């Protein structure tokens, strides 16, 4: 059985939230003027903050963080090298977004002036294009970064990991927490359609995540080590907490949110985001804890 | 990088030749000495940990004084103060009791270097003292072979390559004599069958062609059954037996009259057909060799069982033959001067008047140390001197030891690590390791002798036993001229040189001890013990009928003597054989060992474990009237359902000590050659429960 890997848990989950937010912004900015400037700025700032935190957290996993830069040197076969590279590129792309966010303010001011509305429309339009390009690039880099983090754990030695599971889990975390955090950040800045979409999307992610986990779990038992992981999970109160906080509670809340759009949702959204966040953190902790490797079975 | 020659001085069959690598005066690593023909440039797992022993920050560094004893309140004192305190105490006791008999020495096998007999010399030189006499390890077997052949004397173990049939009888070479395996393997590669007879399926037994899990303490019965079958089939070497032994026919009559295969099988738990099989094979495959381990003689009838096995060897004419023998051990290569040991008592010393009227030391039983020390009244024992010895964890009945120590006036211990004995001492003196000493070591198994150089300077303020004796002598003579006869000069190397004599030099084919610096030497004696037929018994023959044994209250013949019966209250036999990662209380406390073997275990048969609801890894309380220990269970079918096994050892920061439950039950023999009967370590009975 593995250990409680705080650095890795924080690195993966925070990184995935950050990229999830960018991804959602990208979707919102998919065509002109849908993405509110304020939300864009807020989103970029928050995701950047999370990304930095994530990268810092990852250092604590190393015996010699000072030499972390060397981790870039084995791109040929090491998914860890690839992950680091992609996350650094994502970070660069984010810096560009940040630059755009700062310029945006000037562009934004124009809107208020009705006389030059036309100009503003165009400028805003161009901006949105370049924005969505920037967001697009960041998201793609980020998503591939996340995919490579997942690939690190696809180890023949660890049957529970040696499958598509890790990739799916990591991406779903990205989608779910990305959407929820965007909702939480967006608040009034989001149009109802956008809200609705994000809620539906979150709902989809949660249910898919639950579904996949069930299938994944049932497949674990084919190998001895996988079975060991499974029994560990089912016997761990953590797992049931994770199920409750990360799957069932969010499902109910999201459904009720979609059913009754009229009521003020801010608090509910915050709650569901929080719950899902905790759920995912526990989920990630269990991911590491439950890992059982194929090993020598001897007496001593 | 400089290299030095050393020899491992531990109480072990193999007594390995070592090469020590030293740089800037620091010991870097150790290797086996390729010039040592028996250990062949290889060490055991323990030997390789020596650098950790020498440089462990846990080592005892300075003379220290504890006040009061057992309080853990230690004061560092100078050598001068330590020796002054000790000297004054000795003189004070001498004054109060008119002799030095209140001073008791307990020294044994912590370091078997010849110069270390200076410990005994230290005591002799202050007067007549009380001495823990005997050996816990192997005395019953020694006496058995002394009654039969006149002394213990075995074939060169390298001669095992010539055997065609090999029985290891209660011997776990894989753990205690690993260097014999290449020779055993050579023989096996040429088709020799290996039979291992042992109550425990040891690592050695696991390699056997035939493993026989015998009822403990019934080895003699098995040998008698074999003898009867050999007799019935007339596979007896009458010529050899009648020509070389006394009382053979008398024993044959006993076999005819008293022994049946059914009885032997019933006693030993070994099926009849198996007894017949090994009897036939052993008697008809020539030469056939038997290696009698020390484990099998640690019983109340252990010596007698060895005598029976000896007789089996004689009956088949396997004694005195290359590739044969009933091999147990030898002291042929130990003919040194013991110069450091032989010091006459000071003028006018009063001694103990023995039953024979001789004045001398007062000897007490090393194997019942606690009780015997406490039993002395005229004069009582007031002071203990302990060197090369850790009774605190190695003697039977630890509680009794604790009580006895508490009753002492003064306890001095010389040691390198803070073990249970040091814990109960007033003064501890830091001992050197063998890398910091000059010495010479012989083996009680192989025929090689090697020199041990001082490879590094003694660490901190550690001193060798002889250096301590010199200081003590200087001090005592200053305080009271003539009160100590130990020489007050000589460098460690000079002391080593004084141990050699023409006899030993001739045996080793050298003219000067310095020649040993080029490599260990093998004694020039025949590979087959007793091949000259000159036995050392009173009759100069093998004494199947031994009047000496009879005189000592033992059966004259190698006949069956009943084993100790399992008591109702304590139905489980608790065996505590030698460990793999330690030699008694040495080695296991070192960091490498604590990583490789972090905790003690007790081996329990699944059937027995189930009976007491004990699961793998559960903690088990093992207890009897004497005391109890609690240890982790390991379920294994390598033991039998009525025997549990835990290997004696001293773990760092642990009070695990099997001897809390071990009664000081004497074995049947030992008095004749070693002064006291041995210990029936393996006749220990307990009860278990889930802790």
């Amino acid at each position, binding site marked *: 059985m593995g250990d409680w890997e705080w650095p890795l848990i924080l690195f993966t989950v925070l990184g995935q939230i950050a990229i999830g937010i960018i991804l959602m912004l990208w979707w919102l900015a998919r065509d002109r003027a849908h993405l509110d400037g304020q939300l864009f700025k807020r989103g970029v700032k928050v995701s950047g903050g999370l990304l930095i935190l994530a990268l810092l957290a990852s250092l604590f996993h190393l015996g*010699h963080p000072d030499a972390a830069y060397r981790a870039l040197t084995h791109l040929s*076969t090491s998914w860890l090298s690839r992950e680091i590279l992609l996350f650094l590129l994502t970070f660069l792309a984010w810096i560009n977004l940040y630059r755009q966010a700062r310029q945006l303010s000037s562009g934004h001011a124009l809107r208020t002036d009705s006389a030059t509305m036309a100009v503003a429309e165009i400028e805003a339009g161009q901006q949105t294009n370049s924005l969505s390009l920037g967001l697009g690039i960041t998201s793609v880099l980020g998503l591939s970064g996340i995919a490579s983090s997942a690939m690190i754990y696809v180890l023949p030695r660890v049957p529970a990991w040696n499958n598509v599971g890790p990739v799916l889990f990591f991406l779903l975390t990205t989608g779910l927490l990305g959407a929820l955090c965007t909702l939480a950040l967006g608040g009034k800045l989001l149009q109802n359609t956008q809200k609705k979409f994000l809620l539906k999307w979150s709902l989809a992610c949660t249910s898919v995540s639950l579904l996949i986990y069930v299938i994944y779990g049932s497949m674990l038992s084919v190998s001895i080590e996988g079975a060991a992981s499974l029994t560990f999970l089912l016997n761990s109160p953590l797992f049931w907490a994770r199920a409750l906080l990360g799957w069932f509670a969010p499902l109910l809340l999201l459904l009720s949110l979609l059913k009754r759009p009229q009521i003020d949702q801010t608090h509910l959204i915050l709650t569901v985001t929080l719950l899902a966040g905790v759920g995912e953190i526990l989920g990630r902790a269990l991911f590491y804890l439950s890992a059982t*490797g194929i090993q020598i079975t001897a007496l001593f | 990088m400089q290299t030095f020659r050393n020899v491992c001085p531990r109480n072990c069959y193999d007594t390995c030749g070592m090469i020590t690598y030293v740089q800037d005066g620091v010991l870097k690593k150790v290797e086996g000495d390729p010039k040592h023909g028996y250990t062949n440039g290889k060490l055991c797992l323990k030997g390789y940990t020596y650098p950790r022993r020498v440089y462990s920050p846990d080592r005892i560094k300075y003379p220290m004084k504890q006040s009061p004893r057992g309080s853990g309140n230690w004061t560092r004192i100078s050598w001068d103060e330590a020796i002054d305190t000790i000297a004054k105490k000795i003189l004070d006791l001498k004054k109060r009791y008119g002799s030095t008999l209140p001073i008791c020495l307990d020294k044994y096998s912590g370091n078997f270097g010849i110069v270390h007999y200076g410990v005994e010399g230290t005591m002799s030189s202050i007067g007549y003292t009380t001495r823990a006499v005997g050996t816990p390890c192997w005395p019953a077997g020694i006496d058995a072979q002394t009654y039969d052949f006149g002394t213990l004397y075995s074939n060169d173990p390298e001669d095992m390559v010539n055997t065609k049939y090999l029985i290891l009888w209660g011997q776990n070479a*894989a753990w205690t004599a690993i260097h014999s395996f290449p020779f055993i393997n050579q023989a096996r590669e040429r088709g020799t069958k290996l039979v291992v007879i042992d109550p425990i399926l040891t690592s050695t037994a696991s390699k056997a062609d035939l493993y026989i899990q015998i009822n403990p303490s019934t080895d003699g019965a098995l040998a008698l059954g074999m003898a009867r079958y050999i007799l019935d089939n007339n596979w007896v070497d009458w010529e050899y037996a009648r020509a070389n032994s006394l009382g053979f026919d008398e024993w044959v009559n006993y076999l005819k009259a008293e022994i049946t295969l059914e009885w032997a099988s019933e006693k030993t738990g070994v099926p009849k057909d198996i007894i017949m099989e090994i009897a036939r094979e052993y008697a008809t495959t020539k030469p056939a060799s038997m290696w009698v381990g020390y484990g099998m003689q640690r019983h109340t009838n252990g010596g007698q069982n060895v005598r029976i096995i000896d007789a089996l060897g004689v009956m088949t004419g396997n004694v005195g033959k290359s590739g044969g023998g009933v091999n147990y051990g030898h002291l042929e290569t130990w003919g040194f001067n013991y110069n450091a040991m032989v010091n006459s008592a000071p003028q006018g010393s009063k001694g103990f008047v023995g039953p024979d009227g001789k004045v001398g030391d007062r000897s007490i039983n090393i194997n019942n140390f606690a009780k015997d020390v406490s039993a002395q009244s005229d004069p009582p024992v007031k002071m203990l001197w302990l060197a090369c010895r850790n009774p605190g964890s190695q003697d039977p009945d630890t509680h009794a030891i604790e009580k006895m120590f508490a009753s002492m006036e003064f306890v001095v211990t010389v040691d390198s690590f803070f073990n249970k004995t040091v814990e109960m001492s007033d003064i501890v003196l830091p001992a050197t390791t063998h890398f910091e000493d000059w010495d010479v070591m012989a083996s009680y198994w192989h025929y090689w002798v090697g020199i041990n150089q001082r490879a590094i300077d003694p660490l901190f303020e550690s001193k060798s036993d002889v250096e301590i004796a010199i200081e003590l002598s200087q001090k005592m003579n200053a305080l009271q001229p003539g009160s100590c006869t130990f020489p007050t000069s000589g460098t460690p190397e000079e002391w080593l040189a004084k141990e050699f004599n023409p006899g030993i030099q001739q045996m080793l084919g050298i003219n000067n001890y310095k020649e040993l610096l080029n490599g260990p030497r093998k004694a020039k004696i025949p590979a087959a013990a007793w091949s000259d037929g000159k036995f050392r018994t009173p009759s100069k023959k093998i004494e199947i009928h031994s009047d000496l044994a009879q005189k000592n209250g033992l059966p004259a013949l190698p006949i069956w003597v009943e084993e100790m019966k399992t008591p109702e209250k304590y139905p489980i036999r608790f065996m505590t054989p030698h460990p793999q990662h330690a030699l008694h209380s040495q080695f296991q406390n070192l960091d*490498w060992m604590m990583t490789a073997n972090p905790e003690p275990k007790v081996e329990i048969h699944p059937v027995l474990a189930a009976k007491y609801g004990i699961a793998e890894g559960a903690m088990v309380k093992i207890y009897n009237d004497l005391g109890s220990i609690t240890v982790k269970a390991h379920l294994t079918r390598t033991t039998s359902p009525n025997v549990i096994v835990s290997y004696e050892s001293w773990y760092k920061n642990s009070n695990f000590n099997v001897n809390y439950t071990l009664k000081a039950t004497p074995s049947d023999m030992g008095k004749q050659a070693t002064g006291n009967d041995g210990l029936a370590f393996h006749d220990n009975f307990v009860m278990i429960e889930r802790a």
Partner: protein
Amino acid sequence: MSKQLGFLHNSEKCVGCRGCEMACKNEYQIDPIPQWRKVFQLREDDFSLPSRMFISMACNHCAHPECLRVCPVEAYTKRDDGIVVHDPERCIGCRLCTMACPYDRPQFNPAKKKVEKCNLCYQRIDQGEKPACVAACIPGALALVEITTSLDQKTGVLKTLPGLPSPQITTPSLRFVGPKQGKQIRRD
């Protein structure tokens, strides 16, 4: 890669004396925790008769070393003779190799915060000496061999033993002569 060196462990001769384990520590004066080479006692139930049977295992210098594949800093390199060498200078202590190796032979040294493992004494081999463990093996159970098809065709040479991970994961350069069990007269 011109050849593949590896170990041949004769479980028939090995008595589990652990000399190899400590000879390795002595040769490199390894810190207390890491065990480059470790002797394992096989489970009794995996064999027809209960007895004490052992394998001695260090790094298996696999043909497909997972440690080398996953290591982000190229601390692992595979020599022409197939020896997988770990360079502690490069290691940053990410411990991914310890997750990836089915034999747990890359060992994390908490004192150095880096991973260490057996490098098959390549310095000794380059000077024509035997690896320390092989040189120290008293019963002659451990040998340095070249892993070849002809070796694998020899009768009695096994690729794995009960209790060991499937060799398919990393194709270890370790071969066995299986333990032989004699006749046992038991009291249970």
